[in-house]
């Protein structure tokens, strides 16, 4: 378990994927210190709407407050520690603990505790603990650190112009899928950061070019035709983006900043509109004020736990929430225009089909790796050229861990 002498370009040593004490360290150093993607505003559209999030040892309430921002509260009652809100999502005025009915304001202040005979009880000492919350372009981030990393506003400045035109505040959740993968959260992220394995995604292959991550030099002969089609589609996408003033350039700072990010707008195969078999739209209502359905996919990767696809007709957000060293909750949320009507403007099965299938395939890949990491004969393996983003993720992770350990 050497952080100082990591073998660059190779996967981590097995304990990083299996050891509970390293998992605890991950929770402190990564999930306890950095900005973590929580949800989109579409999941908490109105004041009083909340979601509860659990990861590692933490439990949090993310509540849309009356000022249009978010309050992030530790979901740990200050009386005897019960979970204050137990539903995964809901709407509330004040927050009432179900155990002895201690009542907290949406700001977390303890405003009521029935206390017959308590002469010296000082409510002001028992507010719910708060954490940091931030909304950027309709995405909600939270940070448990006392002093959150300061470069996040620069990261937000990078992604806002890409994401804002999709107007997430005018979307609604069409579907949300929670799957628990029997794998370490880093394996989930590693798997997401490459398309080397994309042959294993037949549904996705219809719209996603299998040349993702490749370049002119690395393109294999059997993909040359696809590469040409990809190049053409990309050129016409970029032409449209310039016309509509939409940014598309690749910005890649995955391990060169604390708020690690990669964002770009890339073409899709077929009609180039959405993740469907023929590339056509899956929802008939355009998002935001977008003028055209053929906007490919704006894809964003954020360290440590999220990735996103934003299309003309819908948006998919992905978040990984670690449960234990070998278990991770992967949450996928499909957003459509808030005036799109299910069954009229979109068919839920069709809308979600590609990524539901892809997620299951990815889950299987991640679990295969987790099993491998548990074998005494597991040895670090090399990341290939097309897996440079995996390397970047691991490099980012190792740097953050080193900083934390000091």
């Amino acid at each position: 378990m050497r952080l100082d002498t990591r073998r660059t370009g190779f996967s981590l040593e097995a304990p990083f994927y299996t050891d509970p004490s390293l998992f605890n360290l991950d929770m402190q150093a990564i999930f306890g210190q950095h900005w973590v993607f929580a949800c989109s505003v579409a999941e908490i559209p109105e004041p009083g709407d909340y979601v509860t999030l659990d990861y590692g040892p933490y439990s949090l309430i993310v509540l849309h407050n009356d000022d249009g921002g978010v309050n992030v509260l530790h979901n740990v009652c200050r009386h005897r520690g019960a979970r204050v809100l137990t539903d995964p999502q809901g709407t509330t005025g004040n927050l009432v603990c179900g155990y002895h009915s201690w009542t907290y304001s949406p700001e977390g202040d303890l405003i009521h505790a029935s206390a017959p005979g308590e002469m010296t009880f000082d409510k002001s000492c028992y507010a719910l603990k708060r954490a940091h919350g931030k909304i950027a372009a309709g995405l909600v981030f939270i940070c448990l650190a006392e002093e959150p990393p300061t470069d996040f506003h620069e990261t937000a400045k990078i992604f806002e112009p890409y994401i804002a035109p999709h107007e997430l505040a005018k979307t609604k959740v069409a579907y949300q899928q929670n799957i628990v993968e029997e794998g370490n959260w880093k394996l989930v992220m590693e798997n997401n950061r490459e398309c080397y394995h994309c042959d294993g995604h037949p549904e996705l292959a219809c719209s996603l070019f299998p040349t993702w991550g490749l370049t002119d030099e690395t393109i294999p002969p059997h993909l040359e035709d696809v590469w040409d089609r990809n190049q053409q589609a990309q050129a016409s996408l970029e032409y449209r983006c310039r016309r509509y003033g939409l940014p598309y350039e690749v910005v890649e700072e995955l391990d060169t900043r604390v708020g690690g990010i990669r964002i770009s707008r890339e073409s899709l195969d077929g009609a180039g509109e959405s993740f469907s078999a023929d590339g056509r739209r899956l929802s008939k209502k355009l998002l935001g004020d977008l003028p055209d359905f053929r906007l490919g996919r704006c894809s964003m990767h954020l360290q440590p736990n999220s990735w996103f696809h934003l299309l003309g007709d819908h948006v998919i957000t992905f978040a990984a929430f670690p449960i234990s060293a070998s278990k991770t909750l992967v949450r996928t949320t499909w957003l459509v225009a808030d005036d799109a009507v299910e069954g009229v403007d979109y068919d839920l099965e069709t809308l979600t089909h590609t990524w539901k299938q892809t997620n299951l395939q990815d889950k299987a890949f991640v679990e295969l790796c987790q099993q491998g990491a548990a074998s005494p004969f597991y040895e670090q393996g090399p990341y290939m050229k097309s897996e440079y983003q995996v390397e970047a993720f691991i490099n980012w992770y190792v740097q953050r861990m080193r900083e934390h350990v000091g």
Partner: protein
Amino acid sequence: MRSSAVPALPLAQRVRGLEMPWNRVLSSASEPAGAATALGPWHPQEFAAECVETIPEAGGMMVFVFRRMDGAPLAFRSGQYINIDFPIDGPNAEPVSRSYSISSAPTEPWTFSITIKRDPKGKVSPWAHDHLRPGTVLDMLGPVGAFHLADYDRRARFLLLAAGAGITPLMSMIRTVHSLPGQADVVLLYHGAAPDSFAFSEELDFLANVDFRIKVIYCLGDRECGDEWEGRTGRLSTSLLDELVPDANGRQVFACGPEGYLNSATELLRTVGVDDTSVFMEFFSGDREIRAEYAEEVAIAGEIAEEIAATTEEYFESQPAALDMYEPEYDADGPVEAVGAPTEAVDAEAVVPVDAEVEIEVVGVTDENLAEAGPDSASDAGSTVPAGDGAAASAGESGDDDEIAVVDPAALPTVGQGEHTMSFVRTGLNVCVGEDETVLQAARKAGVKIPANCQEGMCGSCKVVKLDGDVEMNHLGGIRAREIDAGKFLPCCSTVKTDLVIDA
């Protein structure tokens, strides 16, 4: 063209999307006032209208401006048509019935106009051109038709495709967009047979000049034309669309013209990626099937008009869903939501015998030179229908148990004292209550079980649903405005104002 001495103005700021003014009238809780009443609800009516003006237009067309004899404005949606009885064979003979699109905007409802192209072989159009004069009064039925702009459109990006006289309903749409605020983006691609055949071209040029939201492109098809022609040439084609409207893909397309033109447009639009559900077409042709559709729509409109004439109120209650094609939704009190009702077309596939009595003239182009007959594709685009904004009125949450609703509060035993009665329909008890007592106190005294904790309106644990009556509530954050709107309240911090019915 703006003179160079005029300094450039900053771009206008507008609200998102296009909203028809009657939405406000119809969704207003108070009684729609005065003249606004006349603007909705609209439904086909039989009325008489007087011609007040005739204006010659290019392309052998004539604009006839009318006003209703009863003084009411004509309420319609931009793109609809009316059916008119022409007394061609004299006042005592059976009139000849024809349908014509309205070319004026519904935002100027006090007069309305139709535009008729003279068809030398036709029966009605020459008569209209020769005999219809200011002072002539005609019987009409309308408005009819599912080809129209939506009442509310958050994404008001339109591609209007017109060929020849097909400009008529689209002219109404352009005038409407121009007359309303709101972000819109309109491209009109207008095909004509000859340089001097473009009706309304001066007004269109003017609108395109003064309104940055409107773009007009004239196109001559692929016939020879002189050097002085500054517009485009070429049939409707994918390359023409790609060049002139490269974002057609994200627009709603309204197309009107002869059948061949529209059939080829259907194919082309598909090719450039416009979704079928974003394409709305009005066939201006004498095709038998289309005449049948028009006849059927007019017949239904006539029935509706008769029913309304009989009794407006009963009509609102009895209107079958299938006929709900021109209407916002109604209940006994009138319209419930202006933007809520998707319009619905008459089934285009239905085979309807053409009624010899209801003769439908070809209102549009008969000039074969113009018709850009496309491949003989099936006209399956039919009369597609603009989808209304489907957001349904969110009904307040009420008791989840239907049986509760049938409990008659008067039949319940009554306890307590006070000037108001609270009927707890689940408990099955009437509790009298004074004005200085909270609902919770009185309920508890009477043995009604309502969980409660803080008793100060903070924790929300006493929240119940009020089925009827008013309370005064002084809560401390235990309830959300949304929940109050849904009929909930906190009995611990509420006193009664009227008799109550409570779902507890």
